[in-house]
């Protein structure tokens, strides 16, 4: 645990030492703010339902931008050699880095908390769907960051890692569209695999254990695979 926290802390410092954290957060907040205002004016509704639906699309790009450097940069600079010869387990490296990415993402999300406060000033929002929506957004972001770290473990090139992450996320998002072209059995597999089909309930104010478990298992699975890939580098 101490090792893991050391990695997380170091990684967070790196985020804020480089322009990445600021640029990505600024971009996220600018787009999110614009969407919030637009949606508010159009719908005149004291809810964040539509905003959450749209924020996910920004995450397609924001999450890979945060996660792309996690492991790729270590491979490129060679600093992975010192990390892997320190008395620290490979999974501690992978999870420590993911926690750092998650922490940065949580800060970005926390900065949007004034949107519901604005709604409170203007009307009477229903807090249930807002809270569940935030939980869904955070789970979705955490999952995308894990997928992004997985692709980052595959290459020493950050750009390649980012593009791969966007592709993987898009495929997982859209895969339920294939459902209607296959047999119902396979179709339900596609449906259950898709990121999108586990997200909609959160926006309606429903926190389904199945959905939460889905996101958690994709996170654990991705980070497990990333650890395996990291370990496999020793054999090359």
């Amino acid at each position: 645990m101490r090792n893991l926290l050391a990695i997380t802390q170091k990684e967070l410092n790196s985020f804020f030492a480089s322009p990445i954290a600021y640029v990505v957060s600024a971009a996220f907040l600018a787009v999110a703010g614009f969407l919030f205002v637009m949606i508010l004016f159009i719908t005149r509704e004291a809810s964040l339902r539509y905003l959450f639906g749209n924020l996910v699309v920004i995450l397609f790009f924001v999450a890979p931008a945060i996660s792309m450097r996690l492991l790729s940069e270590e491979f490129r600079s060679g600093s992975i050699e010192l990390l892997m010869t320190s008395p620290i387990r490979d999974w501690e490296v992978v999870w420590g880095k993911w926690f750092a990415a998650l922490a940065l993402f949580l800060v970005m999300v926390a900065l949007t908390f004034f949107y519901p406060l604005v709604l409170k000033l203007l009307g009477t929002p229903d807090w249930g769907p807002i809270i569940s929506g935030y939980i869904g957004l955070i789970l979705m972001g955490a999952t995308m960051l894990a997928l992004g770290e997985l692709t980052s473990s595959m290459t020493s090139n950050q750009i390649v890692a980012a593009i791969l992450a966007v592709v993987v996320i898009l495929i997982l998002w859209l895969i339920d569209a294939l459902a209607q072209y296959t047999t119902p059995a396979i179709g339900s597999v596609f449906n259950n695999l898709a990121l999108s089909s586990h997200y909609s309930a959160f926006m309606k104010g429903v926190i389904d254990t199945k959905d939460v478990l889905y996101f958690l298992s994709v996170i654990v699975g991705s980070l497990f695979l990333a650890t395996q890939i990291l370990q496999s580098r020793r054999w090359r």
Partner: protein
Amino acid sequence: MIQAENLTKFYGNFQALSGISFEVEKGEILGFLGPNGAGKTTTMRILTGYMPPSDGRAMVAGYDTFEESLEARKHIGYMPETVPLYTDMTVAGYLDFMGKLRHVSDRRNRIAEVMERLDLTDRADTLIGRLSKGYRQRVGLAQAILHDPEVLILDEPTIGLDPRQIIEVRNLIKSLGGEHTVILSTHILPEVSQVANRVLIINKGRLVAEDTPENLTARLKGGRTIQVEIGDRGVDATKVLREVAGVTKVEKIGEGKYELTCDSDQEVSPLVAKKIVSEGWPLIELKKVSLSLEDIFLHLTTEEQTDIEEEMEVQNA
């Protein structure tokens, strides 16, 4: 402290190491010598637990570097070639991070101590990315000794340093011997003879020679060499010097200058001096000549050269 048994490593079809075995005693400074691609870095990476060997095994501080990698790693300080550092961290921040990973107790004081020792104190808050090559090398060394490890593995520790820094780093390494067990690799030969107690010469993944720097020199030359200069230029001392016990060959190499080849197991110099003085010749100079390791290196690892060329190299020493 370190045992390597039959270390073998394949990268795909390429065999980087073919059955290297050696041992290092506690407190010893072992020099790894070999041209680029000889397998020095591969050996070190196996010892540090970065990669497993394809065959054979390595033990460091009593732990298998692969089976009990985590335990072994706790006892190792490693400085890879062209030290990869986090350029966006400060020197102090970086050492603090490495200290945490190695569970260094009383981290703050220890870091201050190590920075002091490596003359890094005034750069504590400088970003590593802004440091010169020499300073980065020292940061690499600092992180390696930070947790006071029993075993230090240094891959080309003086590469890219200026002469003054090279001397400092060599002195530092020498001062680490005794307490720590050190393995350093280098292709700079004087470095090995200055720093190491023992030398392993590796070429194409095989162990070519293993000895003390002095013995290796002696072994190659087939004995020790002494040069004498006597003030009486008129006489030919060849015959007289040949009579001294232990001298196997005498060669006149200049006006009053002779080169004597001696058995390596006896101390011949005092006998030679006595002989010269008893003959009544003024003794101007008497010195041991040891062949520089550079020539051994060429001799042992350069296959392209013909025997004659090698002989020339030896003669020119």
